[in-house]
């Protein structure tokens, strides 16, 4: 069985036009695009049913009027469902367009970017710059601190040494440097 090229090509062309419409920002264009796209796909499904033929109705047609074989009813049944669903979907989408037009500050029906998502993206950039700045700050700070600590330690050591020498002159007893940690003093 082979499909009819003209039918498939028409379906493809409708799909192309539908896709181009769907990619637009305007919600009403988007809905029109969905309908056109749906029509295209329906034609493609119909192509799968084979060549044109007699309607799949058994009686009521005068015998001998149409001698072609019957067109495949299976794709037809599928498409029938799709058509009606498309109407419901379009109505719903249009209601959304109406609502968003009423709620938005401007009077159009554009699909806006998701604010949350944009915020995340922006947050990512902000976070990056923040982290960088903070890292730089911290590095500077720790360099300073390290220098200060080194200086303080040097002073302290010198003080202790001086104290020891002074005490050694006064009293030759042992000196406890008094660890504050209670870890294991008995």
């Amino acid at each position, binding site marked *: *069985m*082979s*499909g*009819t*090229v*003209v*039918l498939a*090509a*028409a379906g*493809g*062309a*409708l799909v*192309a*036009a539908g*896709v181009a*419409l*769907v*990619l637009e*920002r305007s919600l*009403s264009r988007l809905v*029109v695009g969905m309908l*056109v796209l749906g*029509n295209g*796909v329906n034609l*493609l499904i*119909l*192509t799968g*049913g084979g060549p044109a033929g007699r309607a*799949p*109705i*058994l009686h009521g047609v005068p015998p001998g009027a149409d001698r072609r074989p*019957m*067109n495949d*009813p*299976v794709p*037809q049944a599928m498409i*029938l*469902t799709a058509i009606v669903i498309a*109407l*419901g979907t379009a109505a*719903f989408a*249009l*209601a959304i*367009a*109406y*609502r968003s*037009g*009423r709620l938005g500050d401007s*009077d*159009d029906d*554009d699909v806006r*970017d*998701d604010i949350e998502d*944009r915020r995340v*993206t922006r947050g*990512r950039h902000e976070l990056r710059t923040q982290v960088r700045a903070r890292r730089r700050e911290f590095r500077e700070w720790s360099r300073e601190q390290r220098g200060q600590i080194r200086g303080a330690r040097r002073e302290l050591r010198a003080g202790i040494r001086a104290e020891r020498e002074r005490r050694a002159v006064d009293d030759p007893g042992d000196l406890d440097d008094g*660890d504050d940690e209670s*870890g*294991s*003093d008995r």
Partner: protein
Amino acid sequence: MLLLFAVHCAAAAVAPLLVRGLGRNAFLPLALVPAAAAVWALPPWLDGAAPRAESHAWIPGLHLELALRADPLAWMMVLIVGGVGALIVAYCARYFEAAERGLGGFAGQLLAFAAAMLGLVLADDLILLYVFWELTTVFSYLLIGFDSARAAARRAATQAIIVTTFGGLAMLVGLIMLGRAAGTYRLSEILARPPGGTAVGVALALILIGALSKSALVPFGLWLPAAMAAPTPVSAYLHAAAMVKAGVYLVARFAPAFAGAAVWRPVVLVLGALTMVLAGWRALREHDLKLLLAYGTVSQLGFMVVLVGAGTRDAALAGVTVLLAHALFKAALFMVVGIIDHATGTRDLRRLSGLGRAAPVLCGTSIVAAASMAGVPATLGFAGKEAAYEAFIGGRPVLLGVLVLGSAFTAAYSLRFLWGAFARKHGADELSAYRIEALLLAPPVVLALAGVALGLLAAPLDAPLSREAAAYPADGHGGYHLSAWHGFGEALLLTAVSLLVGAGLFFAGRVVVRLQRRIVFVEPADVYAGLMRSLNHLALQVTGAVQRGSLPGYLVVILLTAAGLTGSAILLGRPWPTPAPWRLWDGPAQAMVAVLTVAAAVAAARAHGRAQTVVLAGASGYGVATLFVLQGAPDLALTQLLMETASLVVFVLVLRRLPVGFPRTRPKSRYRLHVAIGLLIGLLATGATLLAAQARRAVPIAAGFPGAAEKAGGSNIVATVLVDIRAWDTLGESSVIALAALGVTSMVFARRRASVPPRAADAASGTAVWAVAGMTSVDAAFRGEPSPRGRDWLAAGPTLAAERRSIVFEVVARLTFHTVLLFSLYLLFTAHSAPGGGFVGGIVAGLALVVRYLAGGPFELAEAAPVDVGRLLGVGLIITAGTAFCGPLWGSAILESGGWDPHVPLLGHVHLATSLLFDAGVYLIVIGLMLDVLSALGAEVDRQAGTEEAG
């Protein structure tokens, strides 16, 4: 076994009720349940009974069974889980305040944990093992988070579940890989005939990740110290005696069969030894008694994993001995800490002073338990350490050295614990004597004494413990036997060395502290926090990179992916047909209509005004309907025509409230990109369709449809298929339509809508719907005067602004309305033999309502259909669904139709079947949709516009 398990589950279920009735004393009867498990396991463990197995069907379709198996190792684990568990549950009866909140749930969770642990050690099926494994994780999470009002407890619980679940998932993958490689999920069979190969190596590595994370080994050990936020009984049970041993148990289960695998020994020995030393070192600088014990536990777990994972018989014997000893002394010590915390309100060893004199029994208990922990002779801990040294002497000197060092740390922190808890310290207030309730004190005393008693009875204990190690291959000197005293030898020397070094470390405390400060190892809490922070950042990065928030952007990605997949499948699969004649067209008419259809669609895509776009798209839709006719699908053509008309109406209703043109001129480059993507997709769709149609070679399923339709009593095959073979689909579709109708309503009516819309009689006098501002009407003078009855063609005509009234339209609407409705019923009833059906009929009826609305305004719509739309939709749904489920009542399948065929004048041969009733439901639903659209997008939008203009 299953009975035992069921008893545990039942106890967990009734525990909350018992606690409600008996208060905290409920823990005493509950303690009997784990005790029963211990009593069940003790005789076979001592006598060396043959392993027992039983299995019950669970999910036969997935080959899952409740396969349980008890062998010496499992019996010992049951003994620990049950025996220690019973004592700890009894301890709970006094540990908690009588009025503690949430105690019932706590008791249930504790018992449920015992049940899960029991299942874990008895499971003989890999999947079952995993289920119990994760259950223990979940109960651990709940129990750690017992004090859920504290943020620290919640954090610790989350940390524990994240780390152990991560390990558990890795283990699940490993278990499945292992089961696939072995061809069975039965644990005992796999261990009897271990499979080999790379896949098994990977599987073992994954299983080890699970085991090590559960037992808190490096690098997963970070969760256990944090888990000390749990109440002390939980720490004693889950985080010392039972759950953390699950990892050791798993290693012990797999080691006899898999210790020879390349991945096994390096991982187990290195990580185990590392854990033992690092955690022991860390324990030396803790001030919190509980944390000190927690790090001690981690250290001991490392020790046990080394022993049972080494894969030799002697080491395994030492391993199970240490396992048993550790359960006894560590649970006892935790309970001691619980008592101290309870009595003094602190666990900080810097603030505790003089407790030894104040509570001599408690102090004695701790000394005995700590002696077992340090490995002092005459305790079970000593017997285990002795066996461990003996197993590695001559074989692995480095490992032996590390173990001795680890034991020295153990001895040091044991002393530090005793000193910290009981000694008198300068600068801290001494405690006076106080009484400890006997029931609170008894469990730790029993456990501590058991440690000593079993240490002295080590020789008789040798038989059952050796049976557990019997599965391991005996290496070299093999055949070591446990004994309370082996005489002087190398092992005793090593024990002495470790004890002396430990004492030295303790007494040289200041040096240690200073050294500790120099060598600060990473804090586990910081590592975890860092990991979580980077996970958050990663999520932010990924979301920020992928989720840009632009709908067209997402669509481009989706479409290009679809095109890429289809295109590459076509190019790679090369489904080129054998040269078959391409059929170009089915006649010139078809080609002409196709060209017009496409031209209209392309023009719609290029149009700049909304109305233009909509009308052009509608034209293309009518073209499609014509193509349907030419193809031989009158049903489709009819539906398509009506649908296009209806959607045109819907569009017009909405577009009148939107600006005429599109707001922004689209950038040229972007427009070109869209067209390019459209062309690509369209081309691929055409190509794929033609190739797919070429592939149809078998006889179509539709060949049998004429006969089937005849049998079902219909001659219009498509309509029959819709209500018969595809009735499920139709049912689903009608629900979608009903939902869409509800969606439209809720989008437009911001608040509740009136159940029945206001009728023309309710309209305020002087109403002028759709009035055009600035246009004075000729009959303005007459407005407001009620017209004599019957003078108007439409009931609500006078409510319309005079400039909007069209007498011709009103007459036509009046004349055609009922005819069209009748026609819609005709379409519904004759669907079996002519084009038509519920959908088509519904849309036709809806169009009749559209005409009434357009001719007479919103009040006219209410006159035409004074019904509650919601009720209409509901009735329709009830009819369709009800018919669907009538089938079983008549003894046939759901949606199967039955019926009867009278001959009715005018309509001719009528097929009255349940399928007709079904179609009638669909008809009502579609009318409901149309009515909803009209009343929402039509009447309600009119009203909102009116209030806006007025305000």
